[in-house]
């Protein structure tokens, strides 16, 4: 199909980015615009293969402790300054210092710049995730002459105003919480790209508005749609195309986490009994309209490290009840064994609240009285979880490509911290710590996979977390949109290939 040049693509999103600098801010809200504005050393195709981007070639040393990037000579920032290895070095060290994913570049010690177009990343230990960490969403290259002025990078005024990168689009307008307008950067280093003249990201917290906008054709592309009702509706629309490709990278799992430090959830048999009482099929089919698929392990199936051989808990209420009896929690008066609370991340009802409520009615069947504790807003929830003041909580956590970045944090006993999205389950198993640390310090993917297989077996057996389902993220696009992003990072990667028919 012939690529057509020009046109304005309107992207609808429900999440408002704080600012546009992905080097200091994680999350898909920022990644979406940030990856358009900033280029990164590498990018990925839809099969986890690294591709040249700012770096024409790259090389990971045999010992896995250094990565050499050979940069393009023709790359310039939006303000006309050339992109040099100094910028790369500055950016990588800035990300190490400021990005919330502390494990991502933890082993990086320094970045050598033998010449203007060569950057060598030096690490203390072999770091398997280093190549993936060069992705657009994780490693935006910032112009040192702008961001290196000594101002605290997290609060840098240029994070939201007059943002300068070297990506395919440059910023023309950023109305916080409303819209972001990007224009084609005509000196973009990849010849002939991007195809679009203009990108508009319109931010509307109301999903109904997005749906309407897409249906009317005002909006041509909506990423990260997970709501079954909306998906069903849009799927039926002949003018729209819908795909679930492009979300392998972030690898989002919707799960039920236990506070294993608290009675009775410190008893693995209780946790197993609860897992046995949950009907994942009902959740994915009935609650999520069949768009979601059940999740069984800590690593998403689309990841190269996923293994199918994990401990599973098929629904069996009778068995569950027997397990609880065996664990010493006999049915008391009024058919109640004990009480638990469940929290959930506010904001995405279908994935979180509904499941929590389902669990309440489901667990009642085996004699567990569950109180759903709602949090008015994210901070309220975050506070409860971070301070480990919960029994169970629904949560939604991303793999972020490599397990080192997104998986380890949840299970390492060294990561039991008063911070959300750490090991707030207080799960502690020296064996697991060992396995993860080993897997995180070697490069060989085959060996790593073996370590992870063992790890997965253990954690699914000890159930600090019941994996419920994979978040059914979809990209909805108008049929007029060509080359809907399908790489592992999906929409959180440069849209320089996208065009309008």
């Amino acid at each position: 199909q012939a690529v057509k040049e020009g046109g304005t693509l309107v992207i609808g999103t429900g999440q408002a980015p704080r600012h546009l600098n992905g080097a200091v801010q994680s999350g898909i809200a920022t990644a979406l615009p940030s990856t358009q504005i900033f280029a990164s050393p590498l990018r990925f195709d839809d099969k986890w293969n690294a591709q040249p981007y700012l770096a024409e070639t790259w090389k990971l040393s045999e010992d896995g402790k250094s990565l050499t990037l050979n940069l393009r000579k023709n790359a310039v920032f939006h303000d006309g300054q050339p992109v040099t290895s100094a910028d790369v070095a500055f950016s990588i060290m800035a990300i190490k210092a400021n990005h919330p994913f502390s494990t991502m570049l933890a082993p990086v010690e320094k970045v050598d710049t033998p010449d203007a177009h060569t950057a060598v990343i030096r690490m203390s230990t072999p770091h398997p995730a280093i190549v993936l960490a060069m992705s657009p969403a994780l490693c935006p290259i910032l112009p040192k002459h702008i961001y290196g002025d000594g101002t605290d990078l997290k609060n840098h005024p240029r994070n939201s105003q007059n943002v300068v990168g070297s990506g395919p689009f440059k910023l023309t307008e950023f109305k916080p919480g409303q819209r972001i307008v990007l224009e084609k950067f005509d000196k973009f280093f990849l010849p002939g790209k991007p195809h679009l003249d203009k990108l508009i990201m319109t931010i509307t917290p109301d999903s109904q508005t997005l749906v309407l906008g897409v249906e009317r054709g005002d909006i041509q592309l909506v990423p990260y749609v997970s709501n079954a009702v909306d998906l069903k509706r849009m799927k039926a629309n002949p003018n729209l195309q819908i795909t679930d490709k492009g979300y392998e990278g972030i690898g989002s799992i919707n799960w039920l986490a236990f506070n294993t430090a608290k009675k009775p959830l410190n008893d693995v048999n209780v946790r197993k009994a609860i897992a046995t009482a949950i009907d994942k099929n009902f959740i994915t089919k009935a609650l999520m309209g069949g768009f979601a698929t059940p999740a069984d392990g800590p690593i998403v199936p689309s990841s190269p490290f996923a293994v199918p051989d994990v401990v599973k808990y098929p629904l069996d209420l009778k068995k569950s009840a027997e397990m609880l009896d065996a664990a010493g929690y006999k049915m008391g008066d009024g058919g109640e064994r004990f009480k638990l609370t469940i929290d959930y991340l506010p904001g995405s009802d279908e994935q979180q609240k509904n499941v929590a409520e389902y669990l309440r009615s489901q667990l009642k069947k085996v004699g567990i009285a569950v109180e759903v504790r709602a949090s008015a807003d994210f901070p309220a929830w975050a506070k409860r979880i971070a301070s480990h003041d919960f029994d169970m909580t629904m949560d939604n956590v991303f793999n972020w490509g490599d397990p080192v970045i997104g998986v380890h944090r949840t299970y390492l006993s060294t990561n039991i911290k008063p911070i959300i999205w750490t090991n707030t389950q207080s799960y502690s198993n020296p064996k697991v710590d060992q396995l993860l640390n080993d897997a995180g310090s070697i490069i060989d993917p085959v060996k790593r996979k073996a370590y992870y297989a063992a790890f997965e077996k253990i954690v699914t057996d000890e159930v600090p977390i019941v994996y419920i389902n994979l978040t059914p993220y979809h990209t909805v696009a108008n049929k007029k949109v060509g080359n809907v992003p399908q790489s592992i990072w999906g929409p959180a990667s440069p849209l320089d290939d996208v065009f309008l028919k």
Partner: protein
Amino acid sequence: MPVAPAPSPLVEGARMFARNPAAVAGLVLLLLIVVAAVIGPMVFVVDPFEIRAAPLSPPGSADAWLGTDYLGRDVAISLLYGGRATLLVGAVAALLSVLIGVTLGALAGYYGGKVDATISRVTEFFQVLPALLFAMVVVTLFSPNLLTVTLSIGLVSWTGTARLARAEFMKVRDMEFVRAERSIGAGDARIIWKVILPNCVAPLVVSATLAIGSAILFEAGLSFLGLGDPNLMSWGMMIGSSRQYVLSSWWAVAIPGAAIFMTVLAVSLIGDGLNDALNPKLRER
């Protein structure tokens, strides 16, 4: 001259009220709603949050005659249970706002001068704050539950009543029978509560009735924004949570909305009726 049996003003008012078909209709409607909200949950002892049928079944389905919402919760059952919370919050918040309003208004109107100036400033202050926004802040800051929601509604909506009470008290305060009462040695408390208040009761009752309507709307607004008590089914919450799916299930929004509408309408009709019935000017006709 034969002496007519003394009809108390209350009886007279009731008679006037009964003669107003719209008001009576409102009363009947409200009674029906209240009875449904009180008795309903006693008859159908279920969990309103429970998923009972396929999500998004339209009204008239076999399992759920008012349909189900996006989760498969029965709209009819939610409606029954939701009425409780909505009416409760409405009534208590209105009571609270009337209590605050009447007390402050009475003191300001009766004492005048510095007391009045101070209370008027406070009233003005609360008037200047956008009520809903302020309530939103209070509710989020102190976690949304029945108590905070009710308190915050009461706290932000008393100013109207206070102004009314103040004006009425000022009017009545200068009437000669109040002076007469003082001339026979009555104290301030007696004059305020036993003499003036009964004479301002008509407009205050009307305003209290309307306050219930406003409080219900207010609660609905907060719930709609997701700031109601999430563990309590209420009409506003039904609307708020189903809003995302309104294009696929209009009934899950339209029906609770209609319930709110009917309730507030009933309350306003009653308020209107009371206004006519308690207004001596109209009664003479």
